[in-house]
């Protein structure tokens, strides 16, 4: 099958949607399909050969993050040319209501069309604003996919469109078999608490984790808090005082480093405040066997099966976070049970099963 994938966000900077599309393209190609990906990217950015660059993107505040979006006459022209020259059996657009290539592709699409909706909650204002412009085009979507129950509800409540849920994929084996990174390997007297996410986005919740640090340190004096992610934490770190010595900034990490961090750490914390639709990083940490402590956002609670596969704490509550981390480190038997159950549960997110389900949607929509 010849499949055209459309990515709304720039390949110049990493992000969940971009990784999802990159991995999906790889899985489809491995199964013998012919794939072309249209994505915003600078001409100079090194790209896999199946990616067609739609030109430069502009950083815009969207859905609580800074997204690099592509729009304007040049992007529209390139999208139309890619569509007409592509000869696709099926078009699969990601985030068709983000004001970027996805929307441009949807407006110009003909033939079998699948769309995946990634975002939830906070995108609703943007959704409502975009809806009158794209309502007619949305009628072309023959198969709508949401990556989580939360994304599905957002789509249902705001646009009245029902969708099937197919989660984001993870290469479970990759994380399960990674070697712990010696830089961040926990030891008996120096446990490692890991955080991953941009430092300068308040909704990633780093503040709550930092607030918890003194309480955790009171019990585990040797705790190391490893923060992986790009961006500038600003004054939050300087305000820490004596706790600053427990914090280590790893900067932005590569996939292999991320897997190594998860494999060696004592606990992974996900203190996000909202705007999370799925929680792919939680699944990656679970696949690597790391105990997970996460804020009780609906999306995270679902991934952690209501707390059976990790510990949940009240959103934004540093004290509750500290208590959950301390419980994870002290109640080792309960923690082991949770991580063992989590390592089994994550297989439903493995790319092998996710790809099969996406291909089932393709077959249904193309009538194969």
């Amino acid at each position, binding site marked *: 099958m010849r499949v055209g994938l459309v990515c709304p966000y720039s390949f110049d900077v990493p992000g969940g949607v971009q990784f999802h599309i990159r991995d999906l393209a790889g899985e489809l190609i491995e199964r013998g399909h012919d794939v072309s990906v249209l994505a915003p990217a600078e001409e100079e950015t090194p790209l896999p050969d199946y990616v067609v660059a739609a030109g430069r993107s502009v950083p815009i505040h969207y859905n609580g993050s800074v997204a690099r979006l592509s729009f304007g006459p040049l992007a529209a022209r390139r999208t139309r040319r890619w569509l007409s020259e592509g000869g696709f059996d099926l078009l699969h657009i990601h985030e068709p209501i983000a004001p970027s290539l996805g929307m441009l592709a949807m407006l110009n699409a003909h033939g079998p069309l699948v769309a995946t909706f990634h975002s939830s909650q906070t995108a609703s204002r943007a959704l409502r604003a975009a809806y009158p412009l794209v309502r007619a085009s949305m009628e*072309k979507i023959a198969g709508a996919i949401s990556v989580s129950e939360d994304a599905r509800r957002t789509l249902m409540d705001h646009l009245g*469109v029902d969708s099937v*849920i197919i989660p984001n994929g993870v290469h479970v084996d990759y994380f399960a078999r990674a070697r712990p990174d010696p830089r961040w390997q926990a030891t008996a007297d120096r446990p490692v608490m890991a955080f991953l996410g941009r430092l300068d986005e308040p909704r990633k919740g780093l503040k709550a984790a930092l607030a918890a640090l003194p309480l955790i340190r009171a019990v585990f004096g040797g705790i190391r808090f490893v923060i992986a992610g790009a961006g500038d934490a600003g004054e939050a770190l300087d305000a820490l005082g004596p706790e600053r010595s427990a914090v280590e900034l790893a900067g932005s990490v590569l996939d292999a480093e991320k897997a190594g961090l998860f494999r060696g750490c004592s606990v992974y914390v996900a203190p996000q405040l909202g705007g999370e639709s799925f929680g792919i990083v939680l699944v990656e940490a679970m696949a690597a066997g790391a105990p997970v402590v996460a804020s009780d956002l609906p999306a995270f609670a679902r991934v952690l099966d209501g707390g059976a596969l990790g510990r949940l704490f009240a959103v934004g509550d540093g004290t509750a976070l500290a208590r959950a981390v301390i419980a994870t480190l002290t109640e080792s038997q309960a923690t082991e049970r949770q991580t063992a159950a989590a390592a089994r549960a994550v297989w439903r997110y493995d790319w092998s099963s996710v790809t099969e*389900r996406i291909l*089932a949607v393709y*077959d*249904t929509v193309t*009538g194969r």
Partner: protein
Amino acid sequence: MDWAGTPLITLALAAGVVALVWHAGHRVDRMHRRVDDAWGSLQLQLTRRASAALDLAHAGLWDPVTSVVVAEAARAALAAPPWGGEHSELSAALRTAAGDLAQVASDLEDPDRGPLLRELAGVWYRALLARRFLNEAVATAVQLRSRRLIRYLRLAGPTPLPSSCDIDDVPPDGLIRQ
């Protein structure tokens, strides 16, 4: 007042109205096509499900009574339209034949039953998707056709209002991991 521009304005307004009506008609046509395609796809997937069920019934993995019941239900489903109650009966027969969650889980790993059961799971999932997508298309088409412009100008033509497909396609516990 200068009336010289009136014909031009009238012409522009008329062109606007024509474009609006044409666009609405195009949308209705497109939705009708989507509904038709979705019925076609559902028909295909339900036929495949019935064939997979027949294969299972003929494989000698079940007791004779179960095999006969499933085979009969599968044959009836093969001859039925996609909205036929025969598909609901096949679903019920397969749920009883497959057994409970533990049975399905162990059969999926069984060297003899596993491949046939996984084949059934694959086509069943596609049938579930096809019906979800069909009903979503029907709901969108009905909503579109309720718009005043489309109703008053009869832009939907003689095509009857599409109706949803309400067959029972609940799979056996554990057959399809959602």
